[in-house]
């Protein structure tokens, strides 16, 4: 480790490149993984997933509060915990935008989308889109955008898992970190195949409780050390970072002011706005969040579950502010930079704060919670992508609806295996980047490719198939092209491809271009083609969305 880190006063004398004791860390960690696996097997009811209702939608039998916990579990992924804390530890106030954007986004999800989708849909986002539009092309497009969003989300989770386990074991070697990612992929496949949606939902609930409780304890601990005075905490951040900031030509108090990362130029400010737009509009287009609206018996329970999750998630995001700033004053600012030897870089901030406060035990527990978070989120994502492929492409397009429910589940399980393999490869490429940032790319794709079509098909009768296809493909392609030519993929020190430089776009998040483009294409596509002759379907969709007539019911047990 670098000499600079060693000379800085930390609350607990720990080595940030290898905190704790690998033996204790791993023992606590494995015990935790074992317990959650048992829950999956029990909660999932063995392997009796003959019906799609059970495997995909958990029998629609969860209560609003239970489902709210599960939504929080899905949403509070590695990005929210490891990623945001790391972003605040390194970019100061600018990192807090993630917390705010991720939360305000729920206003769109709750008011515009959640209940109406619950009333119309069955398993996937495409069920709603295909209701009155031409089903086959719409389902194919929706499955493709779902897979794209899932891919970016999975990359982030895998990067997080690799960094975390390497931190526990003190592994700084690249090849060994890749092995860690492969092991996570295998565990994930086992989880999903055994548990299905129901088992995963149970893990999400337990994990959400542990994560929020763990973050709460750590936050109170940090505040107690600062006399429960936020001002004192911020003062210590300034004190610890001013020298480092001066070295970068920044003001002494740059860490507590906006603009440290995104304040340099007008382009940087546009990039900040771009990120902000993606965060706030992405949530209501995330397929794995939308799917959670189907695991409750009624629209009213869907509403209750979103309310539960908004309060839990909001509370958690207040904790991230304290934890991020705690990392910023407890450790030398140099250790977050690439090459300092800290596994996972800024993503290690949250577990390091835990280690500084409570030593190896606290580190082991918090790391296990974080790992369970990743495992559960990955499983939820894999189920969503698998459901989308088997239900939308295999059942409704390849087999034209003539398929036994058993076959649909078998195809989904095979898809999970394939997704697991892709996630392993992607996770290895992305492991040096901040996780919250990686997830923001998934949000940008969701907001550009999914949100316009969802909103217009629910609220605009003149909307039609061409508008939907233009918007989904146009939003997706523009977002992907901008990402490929951005500093994320090449031309920056933490880029995925280190040997190349085809970095053209100054934006690290495509949202500010691709989201308006997605909406614009939806409108232009719809207005330049005829209104579909589906008045009866339009009326049925309208009535069912608002009244809940004929909505999918819970499976009786």
């Amino acid at each position, binding site marked *: 480790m670098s000499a600079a880190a060693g000379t800085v006063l930390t609350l607990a004398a720990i080595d940030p490149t290898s905190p704790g004791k690998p033996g204790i860390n791993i023992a606590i960690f494995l015990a935790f993984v074992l317990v959650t696996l048992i829950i999956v097997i029990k909660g999932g009811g063995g392997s009796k997933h003959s019906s799609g209702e059970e495997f995909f939608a958990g029998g629609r039998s969860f209560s609003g509060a239970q489902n709210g916990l599960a939504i929080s579990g899905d949403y509070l992924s590695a990005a929210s915990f490891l990623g945001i804390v790391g972003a605040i530890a390194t970019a100061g*106030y600018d990192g807090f935008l993630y917390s705010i954007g991720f939360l305000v986004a729920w206003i769109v999800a709750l008011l515009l989308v959640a209940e109406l989708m619950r009333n119309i849909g069955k398993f996937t986002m495409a069920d709603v889109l295909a209701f009155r539009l031409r089903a086959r092309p719409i389902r194919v497009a929706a499955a493709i955008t779902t897979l794209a969003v899932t891919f970016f989300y999975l990359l982030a989770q895998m990067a997080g898992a690799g960094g975390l386990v390497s931190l526990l074991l003190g592994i700084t070697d690249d090849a060994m970190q890749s092995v860690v990612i492969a092991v996570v992929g295998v565990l994930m496949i086992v989880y999903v195949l055994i548990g299905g949606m129901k088992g995963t939902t149970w893990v999400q609930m337990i994990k959400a409780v542990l994560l929020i409780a763990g973050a709460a304890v750590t936050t109170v601990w940090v505040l107690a050390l600062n006399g429960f005075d936020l001002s004192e905490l911020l003062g210590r951040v300034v004190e610890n970072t001013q020298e480092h900031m001066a070295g970068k030509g920044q003001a002494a108090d740059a860490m507590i002011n906006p603009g440290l990362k995104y304040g340099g130029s007008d382009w940087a400010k546009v990039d*900040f706005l771009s990120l902000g737009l993606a965060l706030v509009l992405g949530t209501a287009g995330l397929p794995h969040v939308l799917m959670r609206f189907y695991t409750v018996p009624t629209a009213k329970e869907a509403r209750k579950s979103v309310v539960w999750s908004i309060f839990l998630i909001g509370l958690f995001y207040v904790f991230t502010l304290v934890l991020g700033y705690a990392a910023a004053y407890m450790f030398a600012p140099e250790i977050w930079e690439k090459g300092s030897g800290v596994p996972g870089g800024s993503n290690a901030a949250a577990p390091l704060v835990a280690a500084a406060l409570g030593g190896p035990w606290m580190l082991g527990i918090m790391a296990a919670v974080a790992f369970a978070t990743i495992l559960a989120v990955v499983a939820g994502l894999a189920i969503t992508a698998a459901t989308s492929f088997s239900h939308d492409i295999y059942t409704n397009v390849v087999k034209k609806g003539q398929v036994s429910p058993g076959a649909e589940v078998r195809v989904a399980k095979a898809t999970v295996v394939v997704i697991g393999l892709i996630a392993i490869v992607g996770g290895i490429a992305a492991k040096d980047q901040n996780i919250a940032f990686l997830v923001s790319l998934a949000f940008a794709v969701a907001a550009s490719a999914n949100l316009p079509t969802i909103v217009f098909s629910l609220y605009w009768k003149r909307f039609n198939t061409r508008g939907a296809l233009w918007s989904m493909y146009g939003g997706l392609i523009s977002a992907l092209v901008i990402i490929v030519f951005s500093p994320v993929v090449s031309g920056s020190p933490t880029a995925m491809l280190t040997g190349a430089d085809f970095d053209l776009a100054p934006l690290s998040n495509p949202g500010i271009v691709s989201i308006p483009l997605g909406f614009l294409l939806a409108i232009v596509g719809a207005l330049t083609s005829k209104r579909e002759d589906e008045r009866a379907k339009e009326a049925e969709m309208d009535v069912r969305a608002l009244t*809940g007539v004929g909505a999918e019911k819970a499976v009786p047990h």
Partner: protein
Amino acid sequence: MGQGLGPGGAAENVDYSAIEQSPEFSRLRSTHRRFVIPVVSAGLAGYIAYALLASWGAGFMSTRVLGNVNWAIILGLAQILATFAVTVAYVWFANRKLDPKAAQIREAIEAGAGGVQ
């Protein structure tokens, strides 16, 4: 399963167009839209104003208000509180204004009236 059929079976031969035209349904729809569209727009506008202030108004946002706590921290936490407030307001509104109207129409359809004319 045909998309027009509810699993309950009762909604099989419903004239949805007639229901959509009915005054009861129109009232439900306009009540819903008159709440959600302005509130979502206001929420997003507030958020974008905050993001603009944090980038082009960084000087103001960096002004200390309470000790080291500056406007940026206060307005950021205010965004979180505003989200909570909107959530509470929507639930209050939906329980009182939307649910009874929706239930009335749904029950009429499920009773086999084939519409609420």
